[in-house]
């Protein structure tokens, strides 16, 4: 079950935050997303010296909290995607697949000439596509 997805701009300003569980407090999820930004910064500034990890976009599991797992993805333009999930056994391939489709939806939203870079993403199509991707993520990892 995905709890929340977030898109953070390159100045750490939130561009899009959407939570998918009614039970949890939206503010708590915002806080978790905010804390995960620190982990992203740390990963970016102290790269592990092995070659391929130096410029990978998928950052992997950032940190586990009491009942959430937080995954991160960094694009070339320093835009970060954060995924907060309550599943205990998510496969790495599933998360990568999720981020790939999420990145495609994000590129579509940004290609809109009326979208001002640095402002929140207000496109309804983007919101719909994201909720579709989130729904299919739940199904594929359950099977």
């Amino acid at each position, binding site marked *: 079950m995905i709890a929340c997805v977030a898109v953070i701009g390159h100045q750490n300003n939130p561009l899009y935050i959407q939570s998918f569980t009614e039970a949890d407090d939206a503010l708590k999820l915002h806080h978790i997303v905010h804390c995960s930004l620190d982990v992203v910064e740390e990963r970016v500034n102290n790269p592990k010296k092995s070659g391929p990890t*130096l410029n*990978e*976009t998928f950052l992997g599991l950032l940190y586990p909290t009491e009942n959430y797992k937080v995954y991160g993805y*960094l*694009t*070339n*333009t*320093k835009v970060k995607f954060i995924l907060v999930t309550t599943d205990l056994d998510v496969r790495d391939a599933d998360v990568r697949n999720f981020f790939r489709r999420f990145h495609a939806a994000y*590129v579509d939203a940004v290609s809109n000439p009326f979208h001002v870079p640095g402002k929140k993403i207000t496109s309804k199509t983007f919101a719909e596509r994201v909720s579709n991707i989130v729904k299919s993520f739940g199904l594929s990892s359950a099977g």
Partner: protein
Amino acid sequence: MIGVGKVKQYSNVLDKPLSKGKQEVSLSAFAFLFSELVQYNQTQVDNISELERRLEDAGYAVGARVLELLCHREKGNRKETRLLGILSFVHSTVWKVLFGKVADSLEKGTEHEDEYMISEKELLVNRFISIPKDMGTFNCGAFVAGIVRGVLDGAGFPAVVTAHFVPMDGQQRPRTTILIKFAEEVLRREARLG
């Protein structure tokens, strides 16, 4: 029978998936659109440098979006952190996607450490444009300079990018050079990375 064995047609061109779109646009359509863009901006400004700045700003918006698009389409989704990496990315990949071929040459400037030049015999955007004498050194390649600046800025390499005509011996039309001057912090970071 008509219609048998047809591949799936999307009812709306906007529904087509991003990465499988058709990669070509008609040159004449683009030339008309670009000439209209230049004419529109000409009526709005009083002097040449303002016109150049407006074209550059238009290119900047394109560059930012092109960067997002190409980083997603490129295999492996690698990020560029080195100067030469991002320059060769602009020189080959961006040029290939926008103009259908790689740029003619990429050179390092001799006078200053932070200057690089991408040269092209004739920029695609300038193909149907001739500059009247009274406009001096104005170059519609400012649009392409804006695109390059948008790509570099988005990737974290702030730079000042301009377009110049360089007259060549033995050739009628001058060659166009895009001059890229990187900001201080880029050179410092590059020196730190080793």
